[in-house]
């Protein structure tokens, strides 16, 4: 049991953080919503009703989509783009999807390689891009969820103010949708760009996200050496 926790500590740590943060967001959001309903003299709603409402879910979805977009773009961009000196990047000259020998696919697969790496054909192509495909799918579905929940929220606010309701197509070209979307995107791109550039010259001893402390600044990914 202790070994299992140690072997999977990174996943378990972030799972616990995620659940605590989501719980905290739901409680804080409920209290904010409850205050607004009281201020407007409207009937209060229960906690469960709040966390299964579009008012709460639109906030969750808009953050999910931006996080998955960040990883989707980072995975895709690091195939073809490099940053000399960054441990987040391959070495200049290594751009591209790599040879079958480098990637251990087809005839180059080892006995312990995943089965779909050795099969060849469509299954190997799909498996070879499966991380990007799944992260991209979660991004698109989260963004869709944000737009659907945002439409419901906008229409409930419109109803309160006697304004006609909008369709989903109206909402996805509205300033509210793009304000919610781009405020998240800009922070994700800032964080990724900063991480790539700062990790050229800065170090964190012991972290898999950093080069070894004594590694020269101009060395990119140690793994691809």
């Amino acid at each position, binding site marked *: 049991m202790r070994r*299992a926790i140690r*072997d*999977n500590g990174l*996943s*378990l740590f972030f*799972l616990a953080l*995620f659940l605590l943060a989501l719980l905290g967001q739901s409680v804080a959001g409920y209290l904010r919503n409850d205050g607004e309903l009281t201020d407007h003299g409207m009937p209060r709603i229960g906690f469960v009703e709040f966390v*299964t*409402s*579009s008012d709460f*879910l*639109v906030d*969750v*979805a808009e953050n*999910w989509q931006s996080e998955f977009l960040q990883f989707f773009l980072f995975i895709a961009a690091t195939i073809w783009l490099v940053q000399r000196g960054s441990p987040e990047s391959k070495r200049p000259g290594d751009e591209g999807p790599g040879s079958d020998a480098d990637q251990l696919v087809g005839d180059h697969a080892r006995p312990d390689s995943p089965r779909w790496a050795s099969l060849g054909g469509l299954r190997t192509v799909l498996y070879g891009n499966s991380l990007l495909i799944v992260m991209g799918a*979660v991004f698109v*579905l*989260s963004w*869709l*969820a*944000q737009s*659907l*929940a945002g*439409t*419901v929220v906008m229409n409930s606010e419109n109803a309160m103010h006697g304004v006609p309701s909008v369709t989903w197509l109206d909402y996805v070209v509205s300033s509210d949708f793009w304000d919610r979307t781009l405020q998240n995107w800009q922070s994700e791109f800032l964080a990724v760009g900063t991480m790539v550039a700062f990790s050229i010259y800065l170090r964190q001893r012991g972290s898999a996200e950093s080069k070894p402390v004594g590694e020269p600044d101009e060395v990119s990914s140690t793994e691809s050496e």
Partner: protein
Amino acid sequence: MSSDDADARTRQSADMRAMFWTWAGLIAAGLTVMIVTPLGGR
């Protein structure tokens, strides 16, 4: 490889699969709730 090593590898593989499916299940459940709820007009 001894049977103890084989057992340890089997346990490690099961733990890794459990981690993968925990996160995949969480994402799938979250996406389902976030898409179905607004479609129901809530």
